[in-house]
């Protein structure tokens, strides 16, 4: 019974329904008696939990009441993230779409097949064939090698080209295609004197041929005025040539328009120098008087597209000449006496070293 009364006292104390004296006495007692103090705190806490429980039950019922008024279904509809319509479309109909796409592909392929669009007559193929035609034209000779067949009936030489001196001792460079049908070869200088020469080296691939003047009447030339360029020349570099498309020499100049030649052939430059039959084998020089190539051909169908073998192939030919024959490796001129001169003076110096190549053949 004492415990029950104690509880009532504690509850009255906590509820604040004690009068001032009673309260003071109880607090005094509480301070002195640790056990009582503990009881008060424990009870206070427990009642707190109880009250809290009650509050929460009440709050939850209120919240439930509020919740029941909300149209949750509509909100869920709104809140759910909808994937983009295209994704939805795909998810709902992907099998149908796949079938439709397959049919469409078959239909298109079928139509193309029936109308012949898939056959090899397409525009692209035609272009390829045209290039192929050019190539066959080239082999048939339509791609004009710039040699002149029988220029005058009176003379007995059949082909003419141009050549230029590599050494003062009488080595002449020209094109392979100038001399390949030759029974005998003569070179004629600016003064009109002809010397007999023999072919000492040919390379059909780079279209380079080396002649040696064997005529006893030949006297050594003076020092070669030009040098040979080992490296590749730049695009758009100013170049010129000098040769014998006719009995008198002809000058022509232009620029290197491509570092690759016909059909992308890296042996050649493409140049904008005007060429005529007979120019073949002539020197191509840059403005400083370096030999940069041997002019060789023009393409029949393309206006202004002319070609010249690069000088590096001439140099390579000279290297193999020494290896393949009993001739000593020619000592090339390394002193350029053309650089810095005006073009007419350059030509004047050049003319003694450029020859008209006459080729005699049976037919």
């Amino acid at each position, binding site marked *: 019974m004492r415990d029950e009364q104690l509880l009532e006292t504690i509850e009255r104390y906590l509820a604040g329904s004690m009068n001032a004296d009673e309260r003071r006495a109880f607090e005094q007692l509480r301070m002195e008696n640790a056990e009582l103090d503990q009881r008060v705190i424990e009870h206070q806490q427990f009642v707190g939990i*109880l009250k*809290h*429980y009650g*509050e929460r039950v009440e709050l939850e019922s209120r919240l439930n009441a*509020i919740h029941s008024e909300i149209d*949750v279904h509509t*909100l869920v509809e709104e809140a759910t993230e909808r994937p983009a319509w295209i994704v939805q479309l795909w998810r709902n109909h992907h099998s149908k779409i796949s079938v439709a796409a397959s049919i469409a592909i078959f239909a298109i392929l079928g139509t193309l097949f029936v109308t012949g669009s898939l056959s090899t007559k397409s525009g692209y193929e035609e272009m390829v064939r045209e290039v192929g035609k050019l190539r066959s034209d080239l082999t048939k000779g339509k791609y004009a090698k710039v040699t002149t067949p029988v220029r005058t009936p009176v003379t007995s030489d059949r082909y003419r080209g141009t050549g230029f001196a590599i050494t003062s001792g009488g080595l002449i460079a020209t094109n392979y295609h100038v001399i390949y049908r030759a029974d005998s070869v003569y070179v004629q200088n600016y003064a009109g004197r002809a010397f007999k020469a023999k072919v000492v080296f040919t390379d059909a691939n780079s279209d380079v041929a080396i002649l040696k003047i064997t005529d006893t009447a030949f006297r050594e030339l003076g020092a070669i005025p030009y040098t040979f360029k080992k490296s590749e020349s730049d695009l758009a570099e100013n170049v010129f040539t000098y040769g014998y498309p006719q009995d008198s020499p002809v000058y022509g100049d232009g620029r290197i328009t491509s570092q690759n030649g016909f059909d992308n052939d890296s042996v050649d430059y493409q140049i904008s120098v005007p060429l005529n039959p007979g120019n073949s084998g002539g020197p191509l020089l840059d403005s400083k008087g370096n030999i940069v190539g041997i002019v060789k051909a023009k393409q029949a169908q393309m206006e202004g597209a002319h070609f010249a073998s690069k000088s590096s192939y001439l140099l390579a030919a000279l290297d193999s000449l020494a290896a393949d024959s009993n001739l000593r490796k020619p000592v090339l001129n390394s002193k350029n006496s053309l650089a810095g001169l005006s073009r007419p003076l350059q030509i004047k110096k050049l003319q003694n070293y450029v020859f008209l190549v006459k080729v005699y053949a049976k037919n």
Partner: protein
Amino acid sequence: MNKQIKTSAPTDSEIVFGILNNSESAIKRLYVAYFPMVLQLIVNNNGTADDAKDIYQEAIIVLYNKIKKGDFELNSKLKTFLYSVCRRLWLKRLSQMSRYGGDLKDFQEFVPVEEEVEDQHERNLQFGKMQSALGLLGEPCKTIIEDFYINNKSMQDICERFGYTNTDNAKTQKYKCLQRLKKLFFQQK
């Protein structure tokens, strides 16, 4: 894709003072204003509308207790606070159900609320224990306890309601009930 659901929300101070003054409408306005936001969070993260309701109500209770405790500081907007608590609670729920894929799709900014959620966890445990203890207590003890301690009825009222001949009898009964309740409550783990 983070579309924000727009609602005409009451101001934060309206809500705080409303709750402090036990205003019915304040809670209702709060509830209605931010439920869609939480619903959006839950249903787009593997939850149902019922999950959203549970989580949201728990968050409201957290907020309610925090305000009622009197030391509520408005460190963030109520909206952000509610969202953060719901987010935290839902993460916890997801990991309990092992449905958490490690990637929660968020729709709002949020603040750290670990402390609040932990406190709430404690309270939930106590609440559960009290609920089952009261359930085990049986009548008339349960009603006597609830009437006296929760509904603040006087012993006189209780006496009349249960037909006790005098208040002392009722007090004795209440005392016995409370002792049993305490026993039931503390027996639980």
